[in-house]
């Protein structure tokens, strides 16, 4: 049931345009320029910095856990604010939408991890290191959380039923009333479910951000992630176990005490006017709603704040000119053209410098980038195949068996929201000490981070098969392979595609941590684009870093546009149950 809701809400932005348009090219250029600027800043960082001390004593774990959660929370709040503002403008203004939407689309398919060095180094160039590293971690987590939330909020605003919107106008709600009475409640369900997913994704990147080093520059932050890595470095199995246990505990606690109650509460904003027969439940929510103290606190803190805001911001809408498309005044046009020209000039100027930087990379290195791209692509492909091979049978089993689902669903959820990066040190340790190829580790790590999306979607797809269709298939006595071919696979197709799109994007991203690892004095790596990015980061080779990052961005965007989007459309047209 939950997985089902996920599917409809988590569908990522698959717009209409299947080809690279002007806007996309401009955005990619802008992105390249941003990378370049970051690299410029980064290369001016002082060379040696003090090494952060990570204590392996389990007693410090609560403190570390708190640190990690604090970073996550800061990034999440930032994401929430950004989503609302960005989504609001994209949905409200036609001309803003034309720019903001393609930007969003590209940004959500770009490998976030490879921007970490650039962000960290750029920030350390302008801020004291302690602040800069914290900020960089937060920015990184933010970039991993924000896009799907923004897209969801935008989507909600765009799909608000026309008459609800008109009622707000007729009753003259000003922007505040409209936002608090109409837009936010309507968007809340999608926003919350996406928050849960973003939060889980955030852990993945937090782990990476906490254990970050560039060459001899050590940017590690005290937290659960760095604890785990330090433990693996020291070959301290007890510490590793403590670390993983702490992490799982935090994940479960947050799920039970924060997300679950919120998911129950947000049910009241459902637009469907029929009762849900299987709503989410939360013991903690029930506890809170039965508690006087919680009620009083809610009354004072939340209701009080809202009332104060109402008094300050609420009011009737003035008479505004009615919605009317009118041509732009020539000065407006001139201003627009001028702004665009300035933008283009800056982009070109920086673009030239960027090209110079890219030209400084040796031909040999470009050969490695090309080979790495192919290798990583093959690894992503095998990870996807393995993911499908086990998630389809298991997902169908869970999806068609409610009792099994009740039992397994919570376990799967916890497994899914425990960040794969936490296990990386452990897995690498086991695999390498047993003399197994690091290639296996790389694929396994990618798989760990991404297979859940596929599993969830398969479960959702299975539960969504109409009962009549199942019965008919039984009546026709389709069994075994025939049943899969006639009923199950076609019904699953749209869900599977949705899951695979998210998973493959994640796998490319994960290649950066999966293909390259440093333990103690040893470096393990394989040929791959992710490995190249990590290696360039470790060596401080910014030319190569830029080249590899841009290659990955472009490759992911192209694969999305030309491969996934077509499949997605096919799925939407041919295999969707109506």
């Amino acid at each position: 049931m939950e997985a089902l809701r996920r599917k409809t809400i988590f569908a990522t932005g698959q717009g209409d345009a299947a080809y690279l348009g002007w806007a996309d090219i401009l955005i990619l250029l802008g992105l390249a320029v941003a990378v370049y600027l970051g690299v410029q800043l980064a290369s001016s960082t002082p060379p040696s910095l003090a090494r952060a001390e990570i204590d392996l004593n389990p007693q410090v774990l609560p403190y570390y856990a708190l640190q990690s959660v604090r970073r996550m929370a800061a990034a999440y709040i930032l994401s929430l604010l950004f989503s609302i503002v960005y989504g609001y403008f994209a949905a409200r203004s036609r001309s803003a939408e034309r720019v903001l939407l393609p930007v969003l689309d590209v940004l959500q398919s770009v490998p976030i991890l490879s921007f970490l060095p650039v962000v960290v180094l750029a920030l350390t160039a302008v801020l004291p290191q302690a602040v800069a590293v914290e900020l960089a971690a937060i920015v990184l987590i933010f970039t991993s959380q924000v896009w799907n939330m923004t897209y969801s909020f935008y989507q909600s605003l765009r799909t608000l039923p026309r008459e609800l919107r008109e009622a707000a106008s007729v009753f003259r709600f000003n922007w505040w009333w409209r936002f608090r009475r109409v837009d936010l409640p309507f968007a809340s369900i999608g926003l919350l479910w996406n928050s849960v997913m973003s939060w889980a994704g955030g852990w993945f990147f937090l782990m990476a951000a906490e254990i970050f080093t560039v060459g001899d520059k050590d940017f590690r932050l005290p937290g659960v992630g760095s604890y785990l890595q330090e433990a693996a470095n020291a070959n301290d199995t007890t510490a590793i176990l403590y670390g993983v246990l702490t992490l799982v505990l935090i994940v479960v606690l947050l799920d039970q005490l924060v997300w679950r109650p919120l998911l129950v509460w947000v049910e009241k904003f459902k637009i469907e006017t029929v009762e849900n027969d299987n709503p989410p439940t939360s013991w903690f929510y029930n506890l809170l709603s039965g508690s006087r103290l919680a009620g009083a606190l809610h009354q004072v803190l939340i209701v009080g704040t809202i009332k104060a805001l109402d008094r300050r911001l609420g009011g009737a809408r003035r008479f505004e000119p009615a919605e009317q498309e009118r041509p732009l005044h020539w000065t407006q046009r001139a201003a627009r053209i001028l702004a665009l020209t300035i933008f283009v000039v800056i982009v070109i100027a920086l673009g030239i410098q960027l090209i110079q930087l890219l030209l400084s990379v040796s031909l040999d290195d470009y050969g490695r980038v090309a080979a790495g791209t192919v290798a990583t692509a093959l690894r992503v492909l095998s990870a996807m195949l393995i993911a499908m091979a086990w998630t389809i049978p298991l997902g169908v089993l869970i999806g068609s068996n409610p009792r099994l689902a009740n039992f397994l669903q919570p376990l799967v959820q916890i497994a899914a929201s425990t960040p794969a990066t936490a296990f990386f040190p452990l897995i690498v340790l086991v695999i390498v000490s047993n003399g197994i190829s690091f290639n296996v580790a790389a694929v396994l790590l990618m798989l760990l981070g991404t297979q859940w999306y596929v599993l969830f979607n398969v479960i959702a797809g299975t539960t969504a098969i109409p009962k009549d269709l199942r019965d008919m298939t039984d009546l026709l006595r389709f069994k075994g392979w025939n049943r899969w071919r006639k009923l199950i696979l076609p019904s699953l197709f749209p869900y599977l595609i949705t899951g695979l799109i998210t998973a493959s994007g994640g796998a490319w991203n994960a290649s950066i941590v999966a293909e390259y690892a440093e333990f103690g004095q040893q470096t393990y790596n394989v040929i791959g684009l992710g490995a190249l990015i990590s290696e360039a980061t470790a060596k401080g080779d910014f030319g190569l870093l830029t080249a590899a990052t841009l290659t990955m961005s472009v490759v992911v965007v192209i694969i999305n546009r030309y491969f996934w989007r077509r499949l997605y459309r096919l799925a939407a047209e041919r295999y969707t149950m109506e």
Partner: protein
Amino acid sequence: MTTHGHKVLGEVLVELRNVGKRYGRGDKYTEALRGINLTIREGEFVALLGPSGCGKSTLLRIIAGLIGASEGEVLYRGKPLRGVNPNTTIVFQSFALYPWLTVQENVEAALEPLGVPRLERTKRALRLIDHVGLDGFETAYPRELSGGMRQKVGFARAMAVEPELLCLDEPFSALDVLSAESLRGELMELWLSGGIPTKAILMVSHNIEEAVFMADRLVIMDKNPGHIVADIPNNLPHPRRRKEKAFLAMVDQVYGQIVGKTRPEAEELGSAPGEPGATRALPAAPINAISGLLERVNEELTNKIDIYRLADEFVNDYDEILPIIEAVELLGFASVEAGDLSLTPLGQAFAEGSIQARKEIFAARVKRVPMIRWILSMLKAQSDQRLSWDVFIAALSREFPPEVAERQLDTAVDWGRYAELFSYDNSDNTIFIETEQPISQPAPMP
């Protein structure tokens, strides 16, 4: 105050002068409304009627100030209207209640922006909820209520802001028959007794009986582009009874106005896309509905039926039956005059024919329809007798707005498939002429 249950007309509230509405810019625009002149006075209950796509809802929204007019003047109490009209409110077809607010909160939400103090707000909301008979449901959420009760909240909310002009956008069409009837009665009671400060009501309706039952003036519109074709006063005394002769005569008259009269064949057929003259748009009538209608009329001994009776038997809203009537007229299966539909001999043959005979009659007739003729000639001009769906859409988009073009082609393909003239291939989105002999033995009926 009232004579025979009619209100004395007062000052002019709304005045529209030559109002038009276009969507889109430059060459590519669609005209939704043209040359609308309309005056609404205090004490009037006006109903707007017309086939779907005639712009009634757009007109209502222009008067409420939700949409601006592209041409002409919109005056309210003699002053040009800018922005949302503060003296009106709308009761929506879908109720437009906020599902996350309780009944009471929904009503109060309308008062909050106006700065009504909290106590006063609560008092007014509770009084209105009581007024519409929802006492005891104040803390219920809309999803817990039936459709009729939800619309009562819609009315309570609208009345909370005490509008001078109450706009109703098909307020009863999403309700079941009985709830709709009781709600109509209650609204009429409030309106006629002067129990609400509302000075005039404007209602968009898809139900002619409902309009005749409630309104004092019936404004009838037609499409392409939307314009007013008739303005009929309705002086039947209140309370009105649906089975009375005068009432039925009124309903019949209004139906006559809306469905018009079958024109001579050449005019009825119109011209194909690309040809001079207005392209004949296809009514969105499914084949089954066409045969169902013809069979029903064929049951009458005279092969003739009052259209309002037909509507009464099958549907609540005339909107559903109009395209089907238009289709049988276009195909020459029936003709319309003075609110009556009579079968032609061809229509009779169709109604009585076997599956195969029906297909043949239909094919013969549908080949005369310009749009179908045009599609066939385009396909025949191709060496493989195949053309992409998008090509037709591109051609049709020169004459129709995009979504209408899609609908046109949908209907054309539906008709063409039934007539076995051409078919549609889903795998590559093409329309093609079937080359093999498609009509084999008719399948035995189970």
